[in-house]
């Protein structure tokens, strides 16, 4: 059994919360006391059935206003998989919340209202999927009950969306016709959509597999150095961190960045047991053959396929604060465990998030996505998004208030 992390994108009107509620409800993931609490809250649909959307609205303000403000994580499990759902608001004023949720997901479910088809919001959500390099897009054409379950409606939307996917260069896209409200094709196959022969939503989520990009190179950001300095272990020095990518093996030639010092992997430890190799996502301890100076924030990488180490680069940025990006301000860039002072001396352009058109000569403000140049006070160790997406990501912190004000993805050399 493994884990699938996905985000659902769509607005309240698209029935996003209803879809999640339906998935939880139909997989028996909602317990009696939780249902009781929902019934107590007394929110009903027009037809008198319990409003499943309330399951995902965790904050008082959200329940009062009937909207999702923040990202909520929901969990359910079948015999095949554990699922982590990032439930994020879909409205344009919450783009930052959606980006947050998407950054913690592998797959995105984009909800399209069968009556409305591909709209501005669909384009925005798809653009975010591309921006964050999500591995799979699943388009659920929802509210099929409102269009008499007509195949032509579904096929037209599919054709429209495929055009959009081509423009955005989204590679992995699938489609399912559903009605979250009525439960069609969510968990059980719908008789009312007999023309559709593909999997139900749950079947799909249980079985989808992703192509992993990085099966031949790895990065190891050092989080913590373990040095017990006890009588039994006077010389023990282990570098603790989590592996990115594949291929990390005992004996590998390595280079430590940004210093550039070379060595090799002497041993790999997991829970005080020695391993021959470590894999993507494992939290391990590395030992090197040479006694060199390495501390938190350094990167140990494969010498045959090293990461970049540069003081400037071009990146896509997503901005989270009311206060606009200030080109004179020093910000902090945090990538994995490393923090570096930076400035953003140039805004190349920003994107219209609905049409993806470039807009020039404008500030980057709350919920904006743009393309910038970054200049750093020291070498920053990273990869380009197209080569190694897991090592192209960083957050931006404003040192004046310590808030996370933005996120960036390195796209190119400056």
């Amino acid at each position, binding site marked *: 059994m493994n*884990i699938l992390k996905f985000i659902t994108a769509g607005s309240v009107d698209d029935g996003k919360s209803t879809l999640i509620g339906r998935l939880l409800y139909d997989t028996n993931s909602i317990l009696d006391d939780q249902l009781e609490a929902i019934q107590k809250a007394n929110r009903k649909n027009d037809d008198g059935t319990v409003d499943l959307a309330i399951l995902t609205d965790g904050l008082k303000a959200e329940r009062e206003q009937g909207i999702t403000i923040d990202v*909520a994580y929901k969990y359910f499990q079948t015999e095949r998989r554990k699922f*982590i759902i990032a439930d994020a608001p879909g409205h344009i004023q919450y783009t930052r919340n959606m980006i947050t949720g998407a950054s913690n997901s592998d797959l995105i479910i984009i909800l399209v209202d069968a009556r409305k088809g591909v709209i501005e919001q669909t384009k925005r959500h798809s653009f975010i999927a591309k921006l964050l390099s999500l591995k799979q897009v699943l388009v659920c054409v929802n509210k099929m009950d409102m269009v008499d379950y007509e195949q032509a409606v579904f096929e037209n939307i599919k054709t429209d969306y495929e055009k959009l996917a081509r423009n955005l260069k989204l590679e992995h896209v699938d489609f399912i016709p559903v009605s979250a409200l009525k439960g069609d094709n969510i968990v059980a196959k719908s008789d009312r959509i007999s023309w559709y022969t593909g999997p139900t939503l749950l079947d799909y989520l249980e079985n989808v597999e992703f192509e992993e990009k990085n099966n031949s190179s790895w990065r190891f950001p050092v*989080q913590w150095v*373990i040095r017990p300095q006890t009588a039994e272990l006077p010389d023990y020095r282990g570098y603790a961190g989590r592996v990115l990518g594949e291929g990390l093996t005992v004996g590998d030639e390595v280079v430590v960045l940004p210093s550039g010092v070379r060595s090799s992997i002497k041993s790999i430890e997991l829970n005080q047991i020695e391993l021959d190799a470590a894999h993507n996502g*494992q*939290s391990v301890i590395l030992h090197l053959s040479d006694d060199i100076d390495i501390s938190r924030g350094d990167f140990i990488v494969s010498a045959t396929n090293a990461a970049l180490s540069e003081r400037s680069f071009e990146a896509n940025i997503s901005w989270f604060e009311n206060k606009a990006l200030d080109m004179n301000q020093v910000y902090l860039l945090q990538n994995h465990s490393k923090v570096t002072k930076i400035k953003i001396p140039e805004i190349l352009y920003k994107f219209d998030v609905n049409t993806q058109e470039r807009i020039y000569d404008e500030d980057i403000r709350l919920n904006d996505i743009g393309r910038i140049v970054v200049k750093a006070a020291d070498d920053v160790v990273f990869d380009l998004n197209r080569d190694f997406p897991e090592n192209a*990501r960083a957050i931006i912190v404003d040192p004046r208030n310590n808030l996370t004000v933005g996120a960036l993805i390195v796209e190119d050399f400056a």
Partner: protein
Amino acid sequence: MDYLDHLEAEAIYILREVAGQFENPALLFSGGKDSITLVHLAKKAFRPGKFPFPLVHIDTGHNFPETIAFRDWLIEQTGEKLIVGLVQDSINAGKVIEQKGKNASRNPLQIVTLLDTIEKHSFDACIGGARRDEEKARAKERIFSVRDEFGQWDPKRQRPELWNIFNGRIHKGENVRVFPISNWTELDVWNYIKRENIALPSIYFSHERDVVLRNGQWMAAADCLNIDAEDRVEHRSVRFRTVGDMTCTAAVSSQAVELDDIIAEIKASTVSERGARMDDKVSEAAMEERKKQGYF
């Protein structure tokens, strides 16, 4: 990767980020299964070294004796440091006033003791075993959750948390609550405890004990429950699904004596874990309100 391996690796990563980002962190230890799991994960994160933080227990004085015995055994086993904050000290100092009446509980008082303990030791990060599946307000909380100098959580001013990059920068006086097992469910914790063969206090397993019915739930018959002539004390076979203060943690009727029995029981259960917590039943937003005040 197997799902338990994934959850374990993520939790270890988060614990190491705490070690790297903070000067004076602590691990909040309640004696319950979630914080016991955290101690196990900390061993995986930092051995053969020592933990870069002490364990901190906020003791209401109404804990199950089995929990306290287990806590002391675990400290002995791991050789790590324990700091205890006593709610009784807060009462003696006049900082809090004990509730009156039959259903009096020290559970809400521990917020004050917790905040005082954090201040006294200048902890800048407190690791806790809360999970997002427990309660709907917790489902919205970040893994690194910043609290202001009054320990308060502001759900509307949470920092966006992207990928696995955690921003733990704070001003002096603020602190961060860190939840490494946010993405675990109750069932995940039990499956992990079984896989890793983690020892637990005996009250998690079915045992015979005197219980008393309060507000429709079976509570352990202890002095702190103010048992009077109206109460009918019964001897039943029960276990506890969560372990908190005796005044707010209800027992469930159970014959589960092995971990496999417990796992089967949870899979078949139609009531959530916090369904047996009186403290959550006060109002729909009970947890959110307590978190805003500084609760775990």
